[in-house]
Protein backbone atom coordinates (compact mmCIF):
# COMPACT_ATOMS: atom_id res chain seq x y z
CA UNK A 1 0.00 0.00 0.00
CA UNK A 2 1.38 3.28 -0.98
CA UNK A 3 1.45 5.97 1.56
CA UNK A 4 1.33 8.77 -0.94
CA UNK A 5 -2.44 9.05 -0.95
CA UNK A 6 -3.04 7.93 2.53
CA UNK A 7 -4.93 11.04 3.50
CA UNK A 8 -7.35 10.77 0.64
CA UNK A 9 -7.88 7.13 1.18
CA UNK A 10 -8.56 7.38 4.87
CA UNK A 11 -10.94 10.27 4.62
CA UNK A 12 -12.89 8.83 1.74
CA UNK A 13 -13.19 5.52 3.49
CA UNK A 14 -14.59 7.35 6.47
CA UNK A 15 -16.98 9.39 4.35
CA UNK A 16 -18.18 6.58 2.10
CA UNK A 17 -20.96 5.18 4.27
CA UNK A 18 -22.24 8.60 5.42
CA UNK A 19 -22.46 9.76 1.81
CA UNK A 20 -24.57 6.77 0.89
CA UNK A 21 -26.73 7.32 3.93
CA UNK A 22 -27.16 10.94 2.99
CA UNK A 23 -28.26 9.83 -0.46
CA UNK A 24 -30.85 7.52 1.02
CA UNK A 25 -31.97 10.25 3.38
CA UNK A 26 -32.54 12.55 0.42
CA UNK A 27 -34.37 9.73 -1.31
CA UNK A 28 -36.85 9.12 1.45
CA UNK A 29 -37.37 12.70 2.53
CA UNK A 30 -38.26 13.97 -0.91
CA UNK A 31 -41.82 14.41 0.31
CA UNK A 32 -40.79 16.68 3.14
CA UNK A 33 -37.95 18.76 1.87
CA UNK A 34 -35.96 19.43 -1.23
CA UNK A 35 -34.69 16.37 -2.95
CA UNK A 36 -36.10 13.16 -4.25
CA UNK A 37 -35.19 10.26 -6.40
CA UNK A 38 -33.09 11.98 -8.97
CA UNK A 39 -30.94 13.91 -6.56
CA UNK A 40 -30.56 10.89 -4.32
CA UNK A 41 -29.49 8.78 -7.23
CA UNK A 42 -26.85 11.28 -8.21
CA UNK A 43 -25.48 11.49 -4.68
CA UNK A 44 -25.43 7.74 -4.40
CA UNK A 45 -23.51 7.54 -7.64
CA UNK A 46 -21.11 10.23 -6.45
CA UNK A 47 -20.36 8.09 -3.42
CA UNK A 48 -19.33 5.25 -5.67
CA UNK A 49 -17.48 7.57 -8.03
CA UNK A 50 -15.40 8.75 -5.10
CA UNK A 51 -14.79 5.16 -4.20
CA UNK A 52 -13.66 4.42 -7.74
CA UNK A 53 -11.39 7.42 -7.79
CA UNK A 54 -9.56 6.27 -4.74
CA UNK A 55 -9.73 2.52 -4.72
CA UNK A 56 -9.56 2.11 -8.46
CA UNK A 57 -12.25 1.30 -10.95
CA UNK A 58 -11.62 -2.42 -10.83
CA UNK A 59 -12.25 -2.52 -7.13
CA UNK A 60 -15.46 -0.55 -7.53
CA UNK A 61 -16.55 -2.90 -10.27
CA UNK A 62 -16.05 -5.70 -7.84
CA UNK A 63 -18.25 -3.96 -5.30
CA UNK A 64 -20.87 -3.02 -7.84
CA UNK A 65 -20.50 -5.09 -10.99
CA UNK A 66 -21.65 -3.78 -14.33
CA UNK A 67 -24.01 -6.69 -14.73
CA UNK A 68 -25.78 -5.77 -11.52
CA UNK A 69 -25.95 -2.14 -12.60
CA UNK A 70 -27.63 -3.13 -15.81
CA UNK A 71 -30.29 -4.98 -13.88
CA UNK A 72 -30.69 -2.10 -11.48
CA UNK A 73 -31.17 0.33 -14.34
CA UNK A 74 -33.94 -1.77 -15.74
CA UNK A 75 -35.54 -2.58 -12.42
CA UNK A 76 -35.44 1.05 -11.39
CA UNK A 77 -37.24 2.12 -14.49
CA UNK A 78 -39.68 -0.72 -14.26
CA UNK A 79 -40.43 0.28 -10.69
CA UNK A 80 -41.77 3.50 -12.07
CA UNK A 81 -43.48 2.14 -15.12
CA UNK A 82 -44.71 -0.83 -13.11
CA UNK A 83 -46.38 1.44 -10.60
CA UNK A 84 -48.18 3.04 -13.49
CA UNK A 85 -49.23 -0.29 -14.91
CA UNK A 86 -50.32 -1.46 -11.50
CA UNK A 87 -52.61 1.51 -11.10
CA UNK A 88 -54.07 0.68 -14.48
CA UNK A 89 -54.70 -2.87 -13.39
CA UNK A 90 -56.23 -1.63 -10.17
CA UNK A 91 -58.74 0.39 -12.10
CA UNK A 92 -57.24 3.84 -12.34
CA UNK A 93 -55.57 5.53 -15.22
CA UNK A 94 -51.85 5.28 -15.81
CA UNK A 95 -50.08 6.63 -12.71
CA UNK A 96 -53.37 7.37 -10.99
CA UNK A 97 -52.11 6.55 -7.54
CA UNK A 98 -55.46 6.92 -5.91
CA UNK A 99 -56.27 3.52 -7.26
CA UNK A 100 -53.66 2.00 -4.97
CA UNK A 101 -55.72 2.72 -1.91
CA UNK A 102 -59.03 4.12 -3.03
CA UNK A 103 -60.69 3.90 0.34
CA UNK A 104 -58.17 6.05 2.14
CA UNK A 105 -59.13 9.55 3.13
CA UNK A 106 -55.56 10.41 3.98
CA UNK A 107 -54.29 10.03 0.47
CA UNK A 108 -52.37 6.90 1.30
CA UNK A 109 -52.51 5.88 -2.31
CA UNK A 110 -50.82 9.06 -3.40
CA UNK A 111 -48.17 8.65 -0.73
CA UNK A 112 -47.40 5.13 -1.72
CA UNK A 113 -47.39 5.97 -5.37
CA UNK A 114 -45.00 8.85 -4.93
CA UNK A 115 -42.76 6.79 -2.71
CA UNK A 116 -42.60 3.96 -5.19
CA UNK A 117 -41.94 6.03 -8.25
CA UNK A 118 -39.34 8.14 -6.49
CA UNK A 119 -37.63 4.98 -5.41
CA UNK A 120 -37.62 3.79 -8.97
CA UNK A 121 -36.18 7.06 -10.16
CA UNK A 122 -33.47 6.93 -7.55
CA UNK A 123 -32.48 3.41 -8.42
CA UNK A 124 -32.47 4.05 -12.14
CA UNK A 125 -30.55 7.29 -11.87
CA UNK A 126 -27.94 5.97 -9.49
CA UNK A 127 -27.21 2.92 -11.57
CA UNK A 128 -27.26 4.82 -14.84
CA UNK A 129 -24.89 7.45 -13.57
CA UNK A 130 -22.52 4.81 -12.30
CA UNK A 131 -22.81 2.99 -15.58
CA UNK A 132 -21.94 6.12 -17.52
CA UNK A 133 -19.02 6.81 -15.24
CA UNK A 134 -17.75 3.27 -15.61
CA UNK A 135 -17.77 3.57 -19.34
CA UNK A 136 -15.94 6.86 -19.42
CA UNK A 137 -13.40 5.96 -16.79
CA UNK A 138 -12.93 2.43 -17.98
CA UNK A 139 -12.00 3.21 -21.54
CA UNK A 140 -8.32 3.17 -22.20
CA UNK A 141 -7.06 6.46 -23.45
CA UNK A 142 -4.89 6.62 -26.46
CA UNK A 143 -3.63 10.09 -26.34
CA UNK A 144 -0.67 11.68 -27.95
CA UNK A 145 1.43 13.62 -25.53
CA UNK A 146 1.25 16.80 -27.52
CA UNK A 147 -2.48 16.93 -26.98
CA UNK A 148 -1.94 16.89 -23.33
Amino acid sequence: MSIEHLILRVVIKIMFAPILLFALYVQFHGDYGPGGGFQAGVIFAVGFILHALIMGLDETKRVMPIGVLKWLMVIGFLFYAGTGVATMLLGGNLLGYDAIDPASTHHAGQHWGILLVEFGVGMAVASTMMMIFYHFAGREPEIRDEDW
Partner: protein
Amino acid sequence: MMFAVATAAILVAMLLALVRAFAGPTLYDRVLAGNSFGTKTVILIGLMGYLTGRPDFLDISVLYALLNFASTIAILKFFRYRTLSISLEGPSADAPKFEERDVE
Protein backbone atom coordinates in the same frame (compact mmCIF):
# COMPACT_ATOMS: atom_id res chain seq x y z
CA MET B 1 -29.25 42.17 9.40
CA MET B 2 -26.35 40.13 10.61
CA PHE B 3 -27.05 37.55 7.98
CA ALA B 4 -26.97 40.23 5.36
CA VAL B 5 -23.57 41.37 6.56
CA ALA B 6 -22.18 37.86 6.45
CA THR B 7 -23.74 37.32 3.05
CA ALA B 8 -22.17 40.46 1.74
CA ALA B 9 -18.80 39.34 3.03
CA ILE B 10 -19.20 35.99 1.33
CA LEU B 11 -20.22 37.60 -1.92
CA VAL B 12 -17.19 39.85 -1.89
CA ALA B 13 -14.97 36.89 -1.15
CA MET B 14 -16.60 34.92 -3.97
CA LEU B 15 -15.82 37.69 -6.38
CA LEU B 16 -12.20 37.72 -5.25
CA ALA B 17 -11.92 33.98 -5.63
CA LEU B 18 -13.38 34.34 -9.08
CA VAL B 19 -10.63 36.80 -9.94
CA ARG B 20 -8.07 34.19 -9.03
CA ALA B 21 -9.90 31.53 -10.98
CA PHE B 22 -9.83 33.77 -14.04
CA ALA B 23 -6.27 34.93 -13.63
CA GLY B 24 -4.62 31.60 -13.01
CA PRO B 25 -1.72 31.61 -13.74
CA THR B 26 -1.31 27.90 -13.14
CA LEU B 27 -4.10 25.40 -13.37
CA TYR B 28 -3.62 24.60 -9.73
CA ASP B 29 -4.44 28.16 -8.83
CA ARG B 30 -7.67 27.79 -10.69
CA VAL B 31 -8.51 24.58 -8.95
CA LEU B 32 -7.69 26.15 -5.62
CA ALA B 33 -9.87 29.13 -6.38
CA GLY B 34 -12.66 26.86 -7.56
CA ASN B 35 -12.49 24.79 -4.44
CA SER B 36 -12.50 27.85 -2.25
CA PHE B 37 -15.40 29.20 -4.25
CA GLY B 38 -17.31 26.02 -3.57
CA THR B 39 -16.79 26.32 0.17
CA LYS B 40 -18.09 29.85 0.07
CA THR B 41 -21.14 28.73 -1.85
CA VAL B 42 -21.88 26.19 0.86
CA ILE B 43 -21.96 28.96 3.42
CA LEU B 44 -23.86 31.28 1.13
CA ILE B 45 -26.65 28.77 0.66
CA GLY B 46 -26.92 28.33 4.38
CA LEU B 47 -27.09 32.05 4.92
CA MET B 48 -29.68 32.47 2.22
CA GLY B 49 -31.85 30.01 4.04
CA TYR B 50 -31.80 32.31 7.03
CA LEU B 51 -32.31 35.40 4.94
CA THR B 52 -35.47 34.02 3.42
CA GLY B 53 -36.64 32.75 6.77
CA ARG B 54 -36.54 29.07 5.83
CA PRO B 55 -33.31 27.63 7.18
CA ASP B 56 -34.56 24.08 6.84
CA PHE B 57 -33.04 23.51 3.44
CA LEU B 58 -29.48 22.95 4.52
CA ASP B 59 -29.40 19.66 2.66
CA ILE B 60 -28.35 21.65 -0.35
CA SER B 61 -25.34 22.92 1.51
CA VAL B 62 -24.40 19.41 2.52
CA LEU B 63 -24.65 18.33 -1.06
CA TYR B 64 -22.46 21.21 -2.20
CA ALA B 65 -19.80 20.39 0.31
CA LEU B 66 -19.86 16.80 -0.85
CA LEU B 67 -19.70 17.55 -4.55
CA ASN B 68 -17.05 20.17 -4.16
CA PHE B 69 -14.94 17.56 -2.53
CA ALA B 70 -15.67 14.93 -5.12
CA SER B 71 -14.81 17.10 -8.07
CA THR B 72 -11.59 18.24 -6.45
CA ILE B 73 -10.55 14.63 -6.03
CA ALA B 74 -11.46 13.91 -9.63
CA ILE B 75 -9.31 16.82 -10.72
CA LEU B 76 -6.41 15.53 -8.69
CA LYS B 77 -6.62 12.18 -10.39
CA PHE B 78 -7.02 13.92 -13.68
CA PHE B 79 -3.69 15.64 -13.30
CA ARG B 80 -1.77 13.14 -11.37
CA TYR B 81 -2.55 9.99 -13.31
CA ARG B 82 -4.31 11.08 -16.46
CA THR B 83 -6.95 8.49 -15.83
CA LEU B 84 -9.87 8.19 -13.52
CA SER B 85 -9.78 4.44 -13.22
CA ILE B 86 -6.49 3.72 -11.56
CA SER B 87 -6.37 2.75 -7.92
CA LEU B 88 -4.59 4.98 -5.49
CA GLU B 89 -3.70 2.06 -3.31
CA GLY B 90 -0.96 0.56 -5.38
CA PRO B 91 2.60 1.73 -5.62
CA SER B 92 2.82 5.13 -7.15
CA ALA B 93 5.56 4.17 -9.55
CA ASP B 94 3.22 3.12 -12.31
CA ALA B 95 1.87 6.60 -12.62
CA PRO B 96 2.89 8.23 -15.84
CA LYS B 97 5.50 10.76 -15.11
CA PHE B 98 4.95 13.97 -16.85
CA GLU B 99 6.50 17.21 -16.11
CA GLU B 100 4.42 20.11 -16.92
CA ARG B 101 4.18 23.62 -15.82
CA ASP B 102 0.91 24.82 -17.05
CA VAL B 103 1.44 28.51 -17.09
CA GLU B 104 -0.69 30.29 -19.55
